[in-house]
């Protein structure tokens, strides 16, 4: 393996890091909002619950790559879309990629959130009700914090999988880490070195995120710590 070549390729790949991070952050934020919306819809009525189920069914049941293709190349086929007010946005590969990632993430996150909400024990809810909390206070002080804590490990996995999923944005011309790697491979024909470097960057990213989520989980679970440690904390 050629160390000089690797030293030269790393900064080139790192130039794609900001775009990778931005794609991940925006799609996680958007996906989180969609997930909250879906949860609200699910709680609202029987019909709302069916609609939310259908959304999750569609976006979890089809490959993300195809969703990206459909949004990027598919929508552009319709003259109505090309002449709409949204076209200046949908024209950009960046917007299409974020949109696809966001819609996909929303489906997964809403399921994670549902699992977290279900895991809140009825005892806790009863206790809150008995002490006279209103529905909203109960939601804010008891249900959501507990649900969030329960859902955290699964949501951590979702964050890392979204960071990796941003690599698919390279198929719609976005030059994030994978896009740059692919272009460099077809320039230099040195697939092993370049893709290993790209993989290493993702690995570091994912490790950092996993550690942060672990820390947060520890922090939010004081009851799990030994008594001595708790008094110190």
């Amino acid at each position, binding site marked *: 393996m050629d160390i000089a070549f690797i030293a030269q390729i790393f900064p080139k790949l790192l130039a794609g890091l900001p775009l990778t991070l931005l794609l991940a952050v925006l799609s996680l934020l958007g996906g989180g909002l969609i997930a909250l919306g879906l949860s609200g819809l699910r709680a609202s009525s029987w019909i709302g619950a069916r609609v939310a189920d259908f959304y999750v069914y569609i976006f979890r049941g089809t490959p993300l790559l195809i969703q990206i293709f459909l949004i990027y190349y598919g929508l*552009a086929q319709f003259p109505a879309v090309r002449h709409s007010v949204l076209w200046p946005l949908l024209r950009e590969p960046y917007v299409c990629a974020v949109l696809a990632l966001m819609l996909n993430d929303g489906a997964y996150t809403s399921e994670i959130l549902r699992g977290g909400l279900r895991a809140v024990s009825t005892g806790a809810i009863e206790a809150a009700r008995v002490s006279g909390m209103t529905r909203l206070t109960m939601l804010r002080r008891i249900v959501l914090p507990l649900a969030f804590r329960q859902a955290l490990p699964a949501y951590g996995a979702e964050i890392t999988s979204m960071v990796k999923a941003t690599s698919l944005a390279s198929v719609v011309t976005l030059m994030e880490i994978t896009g740059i790697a692919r*272009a460099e*491979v*077809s320039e230099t024909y040195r*697939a092993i070195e370049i893709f290993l470097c790209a993989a290493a960057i993702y690995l570091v990213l994912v490790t950092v995120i996993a550690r942060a989520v672990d820390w947060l989980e520890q922090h939010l679970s004081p009851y799990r710590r030994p008594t001595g440690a708790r008094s110190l904390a």
Partner: protein
Amino acid sequence: MTITRSDFLKLGLGAAAGLALGAAPRSAAAKEWKVIRVATEGAFPPYNMHAPDGRLIGLEPELLQELSTRMGVKCEMIAQAWDGMIAGLTDGKYDAIMDAVSITPKREEVIAFSRPYASAGSGFAIMKEGSIKSLPGTGAPRVPFADEAAAKKAIEELAKPLAGKTVAVQVATIQNDVLNRYFKDILTIRTYPSGPDTFLDLKSGRVDAVMASQINIQATAKKSNGEMIQAGYLFTGGLLGVGSAIGLRKGDPELKEMFDKALKAVIDDGTLKKLALKWFEMDITPAS
């Protein structure tokens, strides 16, 4: 029997060794060619494309058939994405590539080439009703990069209407090199993994022009009902190379000899010209 950790280790090592052996180049064994595996993209009309029923058709599949008969060796054509195609050749996944691959000095560092079988110019495609209505130099004789004064003048003329626009090009192609060298500062270059996607985005208006091989543009324009046209100067030579040839591994000189001989035969007896007229509607036969 109890299974221990070291059993797993042995199993893993055995599997790794097996993989390593399997991946070793098999060139040492077979110098006598019985089957030649040739990779193509299947998405570069009219050089090569997929028929609706999945067969590979186009100039190159038919030319390969002719070459196969003349060499007396069976040739198999397989479809493979362009990015990574040259790496796949050097790794030994197949023995040759035929995908309108232009001979360039950069590629010659890595692989060997047969003699060229097609030489065409490169230029721009635009939409008739698009953001760029016309480009200077349409229909003019091709501009060779060797003629520096003429090339400079043509690039300067093109720079005006193209300034600030977005031009699509397939990644790691000679056209990509030309854009990077001569147009990088005045326009936005957007690179695509596959050629047809560039035209798709030209049609939808995401990009203002496409740079590609003249033959590629003509084939796509023909299918567009006159909506898409080839426009502006066409360039040859220089970064664009001396034509398209069959890409081969450097370690297979006897294969190059076989292909060169067969290519000379199809050029000399007019078979290549016949195929070119059938698929390109023009003669792109290089000098014999």
